C-alpha cells in the first residue's frame, strides 16, 4: 500500500487538477478520433494529388508522348529530349556522387582517427559539416554550380571563349573548360545536391555492420583497407545501394538547380556530348506548367505521370534490393 500512496501525488500532477474518470475516457476517445482524422488526411491528400494529375492528362498521355519532342502545339509535344537529358545528367551525377559519397562515408565510419588530435578534429568537423550541407536549399547549390562549373569562377575564360577545348562542338568527345551550360555541369551540380544524402545513407549502412566482423578480419591480420574492402563494404552494399538509388530518385526530381544551370531553354534535340545544353523531365514539366494555355497543363500532367512512374520504379527497385539482400548480420 505504501507504494500506491507514494504514487498518488505524481498521478494527480499528471492529470493537472483531478478529473473524473469518465471525462478522461471521453477525452481519450475524442483524441483518438481527432488523430485518425488528421492521419487519414495525408492519405486523402495523396489520393487527391495523384487523382487530379491523372485526371488532368486528358488523353495527352500515350506511347508516342514519350518519343515526341517539345512543340508549340500541345498535341505534338512530347518529352523525349527531357527523358534522355534526365538519364544523361543522372548518369554523370552518379559517376561522381557515388564514389565521393561512399568514400566520405568510409572515411567517417571506418577510419575514425585514434591518435592525431588534428585528424580527430577534422573528422568531427566533416561530420558536422555534412549535416549542415543537407539543409542547404537546392537552389543555392544551383547558383554555386553556375559559378563554379558553368563559368569556372570566371577565371578560366567563359563558355564562348574557353580556356581549353578538345574536339569540336559536334564531336561526341567534345570537352571545354569551363563547362558551360551543359550536361556535365548539370550532373556535377546535382552531385552537390545529393552528396549529403548519399553520405548519410551509406554511413547508416556501414554502421549496421556489426563490429564483430571487423574485429575478426583485423584479428586475422587484415590491414584496415582489406578489412573495409572485403568485409565491411560487401556486408553494407545492399544498404548503400538502397540509399544511393533513393538519392538518385531525388536527383531525377530536382528542378531548381537544373533551372539555374540550364537557363531558359527550348530544346528539341538530344545532347551530342556532355557539354551540350540539355533539359530534364522536371524542368520540361515546369516549362509546360507555367504556360498560360490550358492544353499545356494537360501536357504537363502527362509529363508528371511519366516522371512519377520513373520515380516509382526507382523506389520499387530500392525496396526490392532491401528485401532481397538484407540479412541480419548480428
Amino acid at each position, binding site marked *: 500500500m505504501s507504494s500506491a500512496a507514494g504514487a498518488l501525488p505524481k498521478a494527480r500532477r499528471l492529470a493537472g487538477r483531478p478529473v473524473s474518470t469518465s471525462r478522461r475516457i471521453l477525452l*481519450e476517445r475524442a483524441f483518438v478520433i481527432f488523430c485518425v482524422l488528421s492521419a487519414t488526411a495525408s492519405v486523402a491528400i495523396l489520393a487527391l494529388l495523384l487523382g*487530379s494529375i491523372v485526371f488532368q492528362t486528358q488523353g495527352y498521355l500515350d506511347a508516342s508522348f514519350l518519343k515526341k519532342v517539345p512543340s508549340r502545339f500541345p498535341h505534338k509535344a512530347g518529352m523525349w529530349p527531357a527523358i534522355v537529358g534526365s538519364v544523361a545528367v543522372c548518369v554523370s551525377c552518379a559517376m561522381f556522387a557515388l564514389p565521393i559519397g561512399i568514400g566520405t562515408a*568510409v572515411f567517417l565510419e571506418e577510419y575514425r582517427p585514434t591518435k592525431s588530435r588534428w585528424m580527430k578534429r577534422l573528422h568531427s568537423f566533416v561530420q558536422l559539416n555534412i549535416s549542415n550541407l543537407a539543409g542547404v536549399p537546392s537552389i543555392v547549390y544551383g547558383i554555386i554550380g553556375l559559378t563554379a562549373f558553368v563559368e569556372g569562377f570566371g577565371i578560366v575564360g567563359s563558355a564562348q571563349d574557353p580556356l581549353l577545348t578538345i574536339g569540336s562542338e559536334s564531336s561526341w568527345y567534345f570537352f571545354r573548360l569551363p563547362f558551360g551550360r551543359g550536361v556535365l555541369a548539370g550532373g556535377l551540380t546535382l552531385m552537390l545536391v545529393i552528396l549529403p544524402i548519399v553520405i548519410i545513407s551509406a554511413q547508416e549502412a556501414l554502421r549496421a555492420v556489426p563490429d564483430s566482423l571487423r574485429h575478426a578480419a583485423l584479428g586475422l591480420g587484415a590491414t584496415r583497407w582489406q578489412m573495409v574492402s572485403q568485409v565491411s563494404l560487401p556486408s553494407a552494399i545492399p544498404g548503400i545501394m538502397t540509399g544511393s538509388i533513393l538519392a538518385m530518385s531525388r536527383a*531525377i526530381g530536382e528542378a*531548381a538547380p537544373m533551372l539555374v544551370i540550364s537557363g531558359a531553354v527550348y530544346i528539341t534535340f538530344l545532347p551530342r556530348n556532355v557539354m551540350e545544353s540539355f533539359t530534364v523531365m522536371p524542368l520540361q514539366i515546369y516549362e509546360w*506548367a507555367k504556360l498560360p494555355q490550358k492544353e499545356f497543363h494537360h501536357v504537363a*500532367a502527362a509529363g508528371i505521370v511519366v516522371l512519377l512512374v520513373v520515380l516509382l520504379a526507382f523506389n520499387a527497385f530500392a525496396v526490392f534490393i532491401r528485401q532481397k539482400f538484407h540479412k541480419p548480420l548480428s
Partner: protein
Amino acid sequence: MSDESASSRRLPGRPRSKPAQRAKERLIQLSLVACGLFSILTTGTIIVVLAYEAIRFFGLDEVSVTDFFFGTEWTPLMGSEKHFGIWPLISGTFLVTGVAMLVALPLGLITAIYLSEYAPKKLRSVLKPTLEVLAGIPTVVFGFFALTVITPGLQFLHEGFEIYNAFSAGVAVGIMCLPIVTSLTEDALQAVPRALREGAYGLGATRFDVSIKIVVPAALSGIVAAFLLAIARAIGETMIVTLAAGSSPMFTLDPRQSIQTMTAYMVQIFLGDVSNFGAEYLSSYAVAFMLFVITFGITVVGQKIRTRFREEYQ
C-alpha cells in the same frame, strides 16, 4: 558463417611486399580523407562565392546597404530607379513558410503521435508508405498541384484570391513538409523509453495522458528540431513558389495576394536575359547569401537544440 570464412580466406589476397602494402594503405587513406575534405570545400565555396558576389553587389553605386536591409521596396527590374530593399522578398518567404507550417506542423505532430502511440499495425502499414510516397514526390509536382487544384479551389471558396497567391503555394509547401515533420517527430517519440510509458500506465493514466503529458514533453527537443528542419526546408523551397506564388515582390501580410519569395526571385533572374554583370544579376547573389544565412542558421540552431536539450534515458 560460410560467408565469413569465405571472405576471410580471400583476405590476404596475393602476397605483397610490406612496404608496397603500406604505401597502398596510405594512398587509400589519403584519398578517403580527400573525399571528406570535398564536403568542407563545398561549404567553403558556397560561403566564399556568395559573400564575394554579395560584397561586389553592395559595392555598386546604385545599391545602398541600409536600403537593402531596411528598405521595403524591391523593384530591380522595373522603371528607371531601382530599389533594392529586401523586406518584400523576406515577407513573401515568411508568409509562404507561415502558411506551410500552419498546415504541416499540427498535422505532422498529430500524425506522428498517432503513428507512434496509437496506430494499429494495419493502419500503420497504410500510413507509412503513404508518407514515403508523399516524401518522394518532386516539388515541381506540388507546384503544379497548387496551380491547378489548390488555387481554383481557394478561388471557389473566396473571390479574393489572385491567380498566383501566397496561400496556395503555402499549402502546397506544407504538404511537401508533412512527411519530414512526421517522420522526424515520430523518430523523436520512438526514442522515449518504454519504461516511462509503462510507469504512467501503471499510475492509471490513459493513452491520451501518456502521449500528451509524458511522451511529447520527453521528446520535446527532437520535436522542436524536426519543426526547425521543416521550416528551413520551406524557406528554401523553390519550384512550388515559382509556379504558384507569383513574381510580384510586395511587402504585405495578406496571403491572398501574389508575392515573391527569395528563391522565386533568384529563378526569375537566372531565367531572364539579364546581363551577367548588372546590379540585378548580382542582387540574386546577395539574396542567395541571405537565404543561405537564414537556412544555415536554422539548421545549426536545430542541431544545437537536439544535442543540448536531449533528455538522456537509459
